[in-house]
């Protein structure tokens, strides 16, 4: 390679020498092209300069330049470009125009620091006047998770990623805090200039903890193997050009565009992975007591009499009552285990006598090892006319629950062709087929086994026996029958029946791609026209089988999504004077989004068991639910960037959008932004050699958001007719024909620095944004006849710090140690809501706990009943307890010994926002070995755990059993020394001396006597998120293998160890689904440790 380069340079020089001899004394021009010496890419914006004449030119987008009107003579020409070594040569201009093609060598300084910014503009580090951060695609490609968005966790400061713990579940991503009170807050994905839908179809009810399946978010249709670069644009100034969808930040992904060396490149990739449940995130059970809620199943209803805990029925016909497990009861507040006690228990649908002991195989037995494997092939190449690539990836994954399977096929086709010197065509077609089977059920429902295992369970139930019972005849042989006849369960299916019979399956076929023409009429301008399409059809089927507790049902849901974007953009790049360069763009975009969906279920049961067809409905079908949502947004945008001496940058953008979802009179809105940067290390290069790089930047931007579709005109709800009588009803939300666009105003300042020849560096930015005129369904008193009015109101402020840095403590030719760190803190505050409204309820969980946006509080306060506190100054005070009050002791009722709780439910009892989040990764590279590990941290943030509220009441957890401080069983009656003495004071302030009874589920720990506040946990954690070990086979070994150019092996572990957390038995990041409703756990899935082995071959 080097040799070729030298030869080229030599030839160029000789040519110039030849030209010199023919020179005449007149004015000529110097023209040519500046390219990257390593890969031949044109370098736009390079500066070609003749110091003697003080004239020069910048290269255009295709790397070409022209310096005209050069008098004959001999000149020194310098070519500079950031990140590349300065090139100096001598040119003699005689009687011919001179062609000077230059290949620049990359310098170590700022290597690989070209950012892809809004609308595909490439910017160098110096030209960037706002925050952007890059993610190394390798760190994502090595894992090959189905859910690649999970992998962005900890990689970018200010990007909060809550990975899902379910197979293919949705990942919640928020950049710089929640800005929109009830709208979408997820960042936009843009793939090669094509906006890529990342919605999910999970319902609001599911997000708030009720029944549903998490079908995942659509961004996971992207093939990580196809990614060349990931740029995260954080602030409003960076994303304003994308219009309303960029308001939550943009993740710009550029796919691979052919390999840069000529010829065909083939890469093969294969891997296998295994996942297993992290036991620290799974319940631990007490092993002392079995099924029941208390001693009330048989007279004398006395907890000291064993038979009171059992159903007493004569099972043998001998006229004597036998002990039967209270099988209708989904709790473990029953009789003490005693292996000498014979108790009838369910097995294979029959009650059989067995010793009364704790199950040998608890719910952990139900959890399988997750297994995944993937194979991919990519073929790409570059010709002198363009590039091409063809890829196919196949993935398959089974989850930790039985009968779960997720498959994916991904085809990627792309290429470009230079039609003429000035006209280039590029295109890409991608297809992803996702097939899900047995996705995990979510929420407070039978379909979620974790709700069963964490909240309502009998510790005597042996899951291995349940498994055998199910596979024995495929019947719903549950432990939880409704009656002795054993036909149907009462609350919970045999979870194996549930998984194998009540399963969902779904298919998503997604096509996305574009066709683009690029025309270069002159060296300083190019025009691109692009038509892109992103479309998918999603087909989901859900089943409830005939023996299940729920009404047998078949439900099918079809959703057709399509989005067309038509874009025309002109890019300019002009050297105005020697020191001043102007780049910019002008463009327009038309977006058309259409979503069609239909949801239909059978009515009241199935005619024939096992036939899942709408025609098998037991009763006549009622209406399906149909939606047809249409949104058009027309935008025009412009950007101008002035660069002075590659040191001072002024960047201005504006965009104008017209959205179909707003009323005609308010449908147009603008997104102005201005930003500037000053790379002052350009001035101090010589005086401060230790300062390798230093830049400060500042920006201000305003962005807008349109309204949800159909929120302008009112329409009615339609219900299934009553007999033949049509029913209509007023809708829950009042629409508003006066809506205006929502606005976010953000400013940002920051500094980027590197020291000691780039051994240390850090970037710091501070931002403050205010989102005003929010379009919110402001909940109003229902006495208005509505739940909510759509209004423009409110002001949500986010301000925060983002720090990212690196240090290379060791850097030798064989060994490099790099530490990368990201840290961010966001402070969110709801400054105002609609006039007269001080609280916006976002979700209501069970037990009266709600998630709210409250004026004066951060977005996402948990409200509910609180303890009552005693405080010397306040005397007993009801219901106004600040969430984190120090000092005040909890008041215990002196009669019962249980805590007193507030009568009101609007006490602030938690805040879901963390104080800060961060991550540290260490990478060690030794010769061909590389080892890296990443630790993610979160400080603060609260979770409300319904799992604990119910699980403690039903006596599942070890803290509800064992001995009290007197050495007596806690579950014995207080009269016999049992119970517990709760810490607290009486209403008059003296220490509590009343022992609280714990003989039944109305115990001192669970939801029954405790306020919601008792089940708020701190979500802080330290996690060993990822460990990568990779090894590239040495070239000398590889070269023996003929065609093979490289072999890389890697071993990656994900979610290996939660080093610290404060919530028992679960992952503090577990939740329900992506969206604005967070800070809640109900039936939370455990986290899965994953280890993947990957081999990749390059030809």
């Amino acid at each position, binding site marked *: 390679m080097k040799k070729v380069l030298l030869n080229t340079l030599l030839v160029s020089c000789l040519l110039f020498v030849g030209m010199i001899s023919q020179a005449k004394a007149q004015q000529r021009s110097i023209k040519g092209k500046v390219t990257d010496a390593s890969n031949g890419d044109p370098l736009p914006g390079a500066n070609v300069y003749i110091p003697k004449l003080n004239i020069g030119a910048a290269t255009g987008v295709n790397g070409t330049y022209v310096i005209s009107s050069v008098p004959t003579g001999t000149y020194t020409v310098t070519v500079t470009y950031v990140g590349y070594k300065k090139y100096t040569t001598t040119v003699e201009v005689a009687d011919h125009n001179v062609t000077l093609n230059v290949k620049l060598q990359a310098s170590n300084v700022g290597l690989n620091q070209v950012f892809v910014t809004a609308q595909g503009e490439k910017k160098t580090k110096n030209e960037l006047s706002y925050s952007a951060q890059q993610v190394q695609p390798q760190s994502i490609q090595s894992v090959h998770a189905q859910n690649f968005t999970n992998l962005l966790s900890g990689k970018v400061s200010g990007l909060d990623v809550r990975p899902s713990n379910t197979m293919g579940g949705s990942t919640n991503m928020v950049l710089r805090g929640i800005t929109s009170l009830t709208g979408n807050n997820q960042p936009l994905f843009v793939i090669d200039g094509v906006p890529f839908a990342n919605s999910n179809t999970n319902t609001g009810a599911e997000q708030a903890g009720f029944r549903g399946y998490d079908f995942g978010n659509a961004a996971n249709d992207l093939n990580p193997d196809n990614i060349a670069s990931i740029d995260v644009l954080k602030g409003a100034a960076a994303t304003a050009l994308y219009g309303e969808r960029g308001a939550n930040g943009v993740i710009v992904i550029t796919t691979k565009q052919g390999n840069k060396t000529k010829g065909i490149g083939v890469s093969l990739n294969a891997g296998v992975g295994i996942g297993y449940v992290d036991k620290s995130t799974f319940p631990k059970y007490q092993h002392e007591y079995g099924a029941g809620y208390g001693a009330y199943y048989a007279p004398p209803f006395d907890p000291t009499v064993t038979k009171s805990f059992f159903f007493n029925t004569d099972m043998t016909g001998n006229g004597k009552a036998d002990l039967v497990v209270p099988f209708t009861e989904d709790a473990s507040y029953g009789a003490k285990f005693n292996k000498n006690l014979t108790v009838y228990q369910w097995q294979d649908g029959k009650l059989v006598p067995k010793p009364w002991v704790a199950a040998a195989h608890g719910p952990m037995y139900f959890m399988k090892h997750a297994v995944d494997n993937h194979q991919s092939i990519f073929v790409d190449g570059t010709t002198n006319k363009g590039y091409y690539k063809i890829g196919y990836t196949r993935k398959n994954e089974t989850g930790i629950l039985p009968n779960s399977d997720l498959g994916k096929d991904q085809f990627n086709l792309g290429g470009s062709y230079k039609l003429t010197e000035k006209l280039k065509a590029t295109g890409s077609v991608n297809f992803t087929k996702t097939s899900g089977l047995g996705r995990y059920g979510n929420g407070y429902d039978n379909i979620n086994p974790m709700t069963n295992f964490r909240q309502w369970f009998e510790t005597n139930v042996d899951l291995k026996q349940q498994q055998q019972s199910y596979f024995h005849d495929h019947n719903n042989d549950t432990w939880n029958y409704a009656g002795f006849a054993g036909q149907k369960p009462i609350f919970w299916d045999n979870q194996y029946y549930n998984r194998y019979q009540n399963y969902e399956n779904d298919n998503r076929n997604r096509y996305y791609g574009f066709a683009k023409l690029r025309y270069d009429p002159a060296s300083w301008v190019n025009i691109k026209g692009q038509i892109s399409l992103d479309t998918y059809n999603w087909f989901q089927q859900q089943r409830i089988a005939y023996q299940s507790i729920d009404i047998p049902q078949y439900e099918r849901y079809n959703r057709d999504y399509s989005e067309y974007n038509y874009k025309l953009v002109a890019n300019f790049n002009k050297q105005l004077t020697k020191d001043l360069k102007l780049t910019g763009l002008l463009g327009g975009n038309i977006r058309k989004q259409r979503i069609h969906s239909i949801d239909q279920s059978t009515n009241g049961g199935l005619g024939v068991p096992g036939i899942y067809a709408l025609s098998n409905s037991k009763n006549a079908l009622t209406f399906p639910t149909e939606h047809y949502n249409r949104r058009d947004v027309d935008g025009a945008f412009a950007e101008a960037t002035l660069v002075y001496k590659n040191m001072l940058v002024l960047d201005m953008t504006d965009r104008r959008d017209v959205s179909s979802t707003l009323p005609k009179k308010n449908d147009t809105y603008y997104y102005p932004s201005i930003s500037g940067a000053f790379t002052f290390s350009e001035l101090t290069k010589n005086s401060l050699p230790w300062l390798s790089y230093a830049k400060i930047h500042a920006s201000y931007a305003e962005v807008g958001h349109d309204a949800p579709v159909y929120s302008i005109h009112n329409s009615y709800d*339609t219900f299934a007719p009553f007999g033949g009588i049509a029913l209509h009803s007023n809708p*829950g939300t009042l629409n508003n024909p006066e809506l205006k666009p929502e606005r976010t105003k953000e400013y940002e300042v920051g500094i980027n620095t590197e020291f000691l020849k780039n051994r240390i560096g850090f970037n710091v930015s501070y931002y403050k944004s205010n989102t005003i005129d929010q379009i919110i369904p402001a909940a109003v008193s229902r006495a208005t006849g509505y739940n909510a009015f759509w209004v423009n109101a409110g002001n949500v402020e986010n301000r925060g710090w983002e720090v990212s840095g690196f240090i290379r403590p060791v850097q030798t030719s064989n060994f490099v140690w790099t530490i990368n760190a990201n840290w961010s803190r966001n402070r969110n505050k709801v400054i105002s809501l609609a006039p007269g409204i001080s609280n916006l309820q976002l979700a209501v969980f069970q037990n009266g706990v709600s998630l709210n946006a409250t004026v004066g509080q951060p977005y996402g306060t948990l409200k509910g009943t609180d303890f009552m506190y005693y405080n010397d100054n306040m005397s007993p005070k009801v219901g106004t307890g600040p969430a984190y009050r120090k000092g005040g002791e909890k008041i215990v009722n002196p009669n019962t010994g249980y805590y007193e709780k507030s009568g009101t439910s609007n006490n602030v009892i938690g805040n879901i926002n963390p104080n800060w989040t961060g991550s540290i990764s260490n990478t060690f590279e030794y010769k061909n070995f590389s080892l890296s590990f990443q630790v993610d941290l979160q400080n603060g943030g609260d979770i409300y755990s319904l799992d604990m509220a119910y699980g403690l009441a039903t006596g599942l957890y070890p803290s509800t059993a064992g001995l009290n401080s007197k050495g007596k069983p806690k579950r014995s009656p207080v009269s016999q020394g049992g119970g517990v003495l709760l810490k607290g004071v009486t209403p008059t302030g003296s220490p509590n001396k009343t022992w609280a009874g714990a003989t039944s589920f109305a115990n001192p720990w669970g939801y029954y006597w405790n306020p919601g506040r008792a089940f708020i946990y701190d979500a802080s954690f330290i996690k060993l998120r990822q460990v990568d070990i990779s090894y590239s086979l040495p070239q000398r070994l590889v070269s023996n293998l003929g065609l093979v150019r490289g072999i890389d092996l890697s071993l990656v572990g994900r979610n290996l160890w939660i080093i610290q957390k404060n919530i028992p038995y679960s992952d503090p990041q577990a939740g329900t689904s992506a969206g604005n409703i967070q800070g809640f756990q109900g039936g939370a899935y455990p986290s899965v440790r994953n280890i993947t082995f990957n081999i990749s071959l390059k030809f």
Partner: protein
Amino acid sequence: MTLTMKKFIITITATIMLLVVGCSNITNINTDPKRPATVPAPTLFSSAERSFSNFMTNTNVNRNIFRLIDQYWTETTYTDESNYNLVSRAIPDNNWNILYRDVIKDLSNATTIINNDKTIDPKVKKNELACIEILNVYAYSELVNIYGNVPYTQALNVKIPNPKYDDANSIYKNLIKRLNSAIGNLDKNAAGFGTADLIYGNSTKFPNQISEWIKFANSLKLKLGITLADADPTLAQSTVESAAASNNLISSNNDNALVDYKESPPNTNPVWVDLVQSGRHDFVVANTLINSMNALNDPRRQFYFTNPEGLSTYTGGRYGMSNRYSLYTHPSNKLKQPSFPGDLMDYSQVEFYLSEAAARGYSIPGSAEQHYKNGIRASIQYWGGTADSLFNNYYNQTSVNWTTAPGNYKEKIGMQEWYAMYNRGMTEWTNWRRLDYPKLQAPPNAVSVIPNRYTYPIEEENLNKANYEAAAHAIGGDKVSTKLFWDKY
């Protein structure tokens, strides 16, 4: 800038603007093609009737726990509601929402649409508006009966997101006025809502729909009047007397205001949904009721109750305690039928009101004893006890017979209404609060006294704070123990 550059910029800008502007007026696509913007008024009226009937009938623990408060039923495993925990399931919120949003708001929209409809026959229009008004009065009166002061004059106004609460007593007075005027507007020679009326729309059963509405409306008037008996004796007496004098009260079980549910979902009786379709075993009959009915050999027990296998005598679950489902008597299969009607007003109820009115000395036809007897007979017959002997044997017991039954008229009527209103939890809760019979006790684990009212919705605390606080203050505190204005004596 060079000339060529300018030219280019101008050209490109022009093209882009053309592209964007050429496709403007896109706001036209922002009407929902799948939902109607206007609907016929009867569909709203039907929907309001259905919502109101579902509200009065269901036994879902998230919405209607009146059967528990009245100690008709009690819970088996999850005993929160039998112990008056209203918060954990936000029951006050749910009831409030149904009445305002699903009943009153739909009625109000129907009124607007009918008023603006110029094609409709003026007589029919008057009848339809009156029917709407009657249902409206009923719904508002139940709101007051549940909470006390509620938003009224400022309710249903989209310009007032935070409506103030009105005094419960003034609301009652205004409701009686509105009801009188609605009754005056009913014209039995013209049609009403026809088949869209879920209560009296069956023309085979009810040849004259409007005359049934007249009876229903007068019976409602009687109910409102008698409810005020202790709070405003003058208005109570005049209202009751005028209702009785109309000679147009529900006068047999054939006139009952029932909603006939369907055999198959989704418009089945909600009790079937909660007890049968759900497959759950949440309720058994409470010992409070069963012990009392057993003592009187009540012939309705066979219609009210079903015993599980192995249980020979009617045995009630211990009220408010955990109870094993199979050890205790269950609600009967009769009321668990999917098509079992919802009951908004019935003959026995009317007779008990009349009996009370007579006992209070109001000037109405018939004696307290006669109406008391009629009420008991109507109830037994309604539930299927058609044989005269059933009533006679029952009534002839000393503890049932008007002259010998223990206590004053409040106790006699209070007890018999309790037995008769078995499937009418909301109605009986009001009777119990007014008459203070039967003497119910709160269970040992109860989180409060037996509710005299519901606390206001949590949403009102959060969304309508100032008015909520004013209302709470005005009624004497937002507590379940606070007595409503008609319950103070």
